[in-house]
């Protein structure tokens, strides 16, 4: 395993790079139009580059690609919460009456159909109470709050007009080259 992959450096840079005088640190949570973590990470994940079959996690070995309303759907390798696909939304669509948070945490998941790794942004839909359907808590490469963008326990509604958590989507960002 690479212990200092580009993903990790990217996340760390992001976290540490928010200088104390940065305008970003002054932005209130009500400001929808100014996401403070980037909408889509511009650097691609690298951690999974050298993941051979042997390197697969238990989740990846048992994942499927046909039913995105089940916890073992491949993109959900690090999701935590209710699946928006069970709540009136879709894999990248928030249910009616909610708002897609401009901020998200990320996971690197392997698509069993091609064996390749993809970067997934878990974007919370915010504004109304927990959907309560299809609760999943997958933990592949899940980290703690000091690595926020890899942590799925944080309420990722920063930048949305409400911090009330409803459900989580799994948005394809691109291949983890």
């Amino acid at each position, binding site marked *: 395993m690479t212990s200092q992959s580009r993903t990790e450096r990217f996340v760390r840079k992001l976290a540490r790079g928010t200088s104390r005088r940065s305008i970003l640190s002054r932005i209130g949570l009500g400001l929808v139009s100014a996401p403070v973590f980037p909408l889509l990470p511009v650097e691609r994940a690298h951690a999974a580059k050298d993941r051979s079959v042997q390197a697969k996690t238990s989740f990846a070995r048992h994942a499927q690609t046909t039913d995105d309303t089940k916890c*073992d759907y491949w993109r959900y390798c690090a999701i935590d919460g209710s699946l928006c696909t069970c709540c009136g939304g879709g894999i990248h669509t928030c249910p009616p009456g909610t708002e897609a948070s401009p901020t998200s945490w990320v996971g690197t998941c392997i698509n069993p159909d091609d064996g390749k790794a993809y970067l997934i942004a878990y974007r919370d839909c915010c504004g109304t109470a927990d959907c309560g359907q299809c609760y999943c808590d997958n933990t592949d490469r899940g980290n703690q709050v000091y690595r926020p963008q890899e942590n799925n326990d944080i309420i990722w509604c920063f930048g949305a007009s409400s911090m009330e958590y409803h459900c989580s989507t799994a948005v394809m960002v691109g291949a983890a080259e």
Partner: protein
Amino acid sequence: MKKAKCLAIVLSLFSAAPAWAGGSASPAPVPEVEESDVAVLPPAGAHWMFAYFSFRNLAQLIDGDTGKQLGGVHIAQLSNIAFSPDKKHIYVAETIWSKGNRGTRQDMITVYDGRTLKLDHEIPLPGRLLAGDRLNTFSISADGRYAYVYDMAPASSVIVVDLEKRKVLPPVEIPGCALAFAAGNTGVVSVCGDGSLAVISHAGGKAEVTQTAPFFDAGEDPVYDNSVFDAKSGKGYLLSYSGRVYEVTAGSGSGAQIAQPWSLQEGAHMPRAETKPLVVNWLPGGQQPVAYDAATGRLYVLMHKGEFWSYKEAGEELWEVDVATHKVLRRAALDKPAMSVAVSQDKEPLLFLAEPGGAIHIWDAATLSEKASAASMGPSHFVVAP
């Protein structure tokens, strides 16, 4: 699924023949980048309904044909919810404190758009009753112009809200009475503690209250708050603990007409149930024990075997009753006891049945067979699309 873990000590032999390669003949191409978006509802279907529980914060909008959740609306604890008759809006009557359990009390009707489920506006209220599991403390006039909110603070009143002008009219006090069943376009029926009804008519701008004579024994055989009333026809059915049915007609002019009561048990060729103790009868029960299909004139009642005062007991059977003949047409045994029943208001009606644990069963009313199922967050109530 995710908890099913393989606990073989070492899995390194896995390397050959990956499991994921088996199923998929032509793997779908994986899209490169996706945009986040937000769903908008199609026009409301006749089989849509809200399922909600008084002590949870989400009213789930469910499509009865599939059991799928289409979206959700935030509700404070102890809220009411209603569709506008044209289904273009969702109304939530709710009470929120500024600091959760403390702070400033805020009563309001919160109005959501029926397609986007976005909050449109709030209409502040002077108050409302806080009680668990009550459906008829809030209703909408047949034409959708007015909302009626029952308040007990502790003096009893009905708050009439002009939804078009977003304005609260002066409360109509109904001492000794409660509830607010909309009847017609400008009528409201309340039930009184002496076994009578108070009927409000606010046609012409000024509210007048007419009181009927007492007609049921409110102490010994009360009628359910969660009885049924159809605002359009002005016809309702008050169901008593013992299974007496009182047909009420109101909404055109002042007052109300009450027909001679009849007995559910007699409709099923049994002696009518009495209120005396130590006798087991088939009795209605549950939280939302009765539903009314206005088109077919059928009542659907959750029934259980029990002694009197078991009026909250979940139903073991569902009885289908013809209000014209007073006959029980069919009795369906329930696999699991049900706390709530509702019926959609269309030509191919669906029945909704809620278990105490939150499981929802959706039946075809024609065949009384299960068509779909859903999951809710407790012993839920149903509000069906108009």
